[in-house]
């Protein structure tokens, strides 16, 4: 079936640089440019290359098969290979040492697999070099959380005070009703506390 055949070629070899394709690096530091590739049917004599701004070749490597690590063909002296293809995922990341501002740009990780009829795929990372790292500012979040938390706290405080005040009022009103019950003496009203206090006062009078 020719359709399925084309589909197999289209999605067999895939190169990925992770969740985001932008990397920010501090001036004069070493930055990791990540790249992993996945194959459907394995690979043999795979060739991978890293390009800077689509024209300058900065790393060229070859991997015989899954059991061996990659061998170097050519590289820019400032680039180091830090990946590993013998583990679970085929990692072909590189580290660029001592980045300068002129190193900012587009880095392409390109992979060619002869076993899958020379299928090719690539992925790009955009590198920016900064003077100093800016900490993310969360003043807005703090203000919002502060106000909402404060209001919830005030609400709870208000409810508590309402409960306490009502409780105190109830207690003082019970005290007044106690006096009423004892002074009238012979009353069988069911108002007020139908509790122990009323009953205790009744027997001595009777």
């Amino acid at each position: 079936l020719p359709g399925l055949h084309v589909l197999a070629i289209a999605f067999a070899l895939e190169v990925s640089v992770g969740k985001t394709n932008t990397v920010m690096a501090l001036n004069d530091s070493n930055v990791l440019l990540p790249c992993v590739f996945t194959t459907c049917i394995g690979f043999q004599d795979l060739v991978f290359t890293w390009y800077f701004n689509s024209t300058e070749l900065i790393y060229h490597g070859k991997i015989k098969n899954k059991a061996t690590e990659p061998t170097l063909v050519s590289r820019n002296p400032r680039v180091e290979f830090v990946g590993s293809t013998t583990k679970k995922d085929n990692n072909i990341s590189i580290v660029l040492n001592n980045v300068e501002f002129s190193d900012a740009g587009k880095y392409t990780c390109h992979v060619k697999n002869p076993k899958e009829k020379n299928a090719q795929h690539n992925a790009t990372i955009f590198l920016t070099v900064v003077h100093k790292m800016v900490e993310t500012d969360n003043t807005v979040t703090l203000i919002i959380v502060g106000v909402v938390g404060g209001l919830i706290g005030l609400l709870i405080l208000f409810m508590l005070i309402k409960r306490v005040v009502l409780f105190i009022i109830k207690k003082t009103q019970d005290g007044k009703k106690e006096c009423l019950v004892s002074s009238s003496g012979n009353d069988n009203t069911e108002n007020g506390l139908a509790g122990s206090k009323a009953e205790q006062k009744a027997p001595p009078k009777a």
Partner: protein
Amino acid sequence: MLVLLAGIFVVHIATVIMLFVSTIANVWMVNSSSLGTISSGLWLMCNKTCSQLPVSSRDEASLKAVQAFMILSIIFSVMALILFIIQLFTLEKGKRFYMTGAVMLVCWMCILIAVSIYTARFTGRRLYFTNPHHGYCFILAWICFCFSFIIGILYLVLRKK
């Protein structure tokens, strides 16, 4: 009374929508010159494409306060809407919508703070603007300010039938 409640509900929804539009769209101040119209809002400054809003270091805290209080006003107005629907079904007859009214008045306070700070700090003469005028988001925010006050007071006054 039922018609009045329905009317207030509609105005409340309109207020929530206007608050969303006012906070999200970046058209608080507009500068129309021969080069084109530049509009700036709470988050971005837009010409043909939108870019970061340039803010001087002494206005940074004010801008963050305006952003925070506009978001808070959205939160409280939506909360008041939900509370109103809940209280519609759980409140006894003859009682007033105290909680909804209180939350709506808190929302009114937040809009007041946000729009006052913006009007005081950001509507004077600005760096990139030659002849600025207010955009529709600014007008919408002030309209929401009036509406939320009226709705809050009405919730506190109305009784459930």
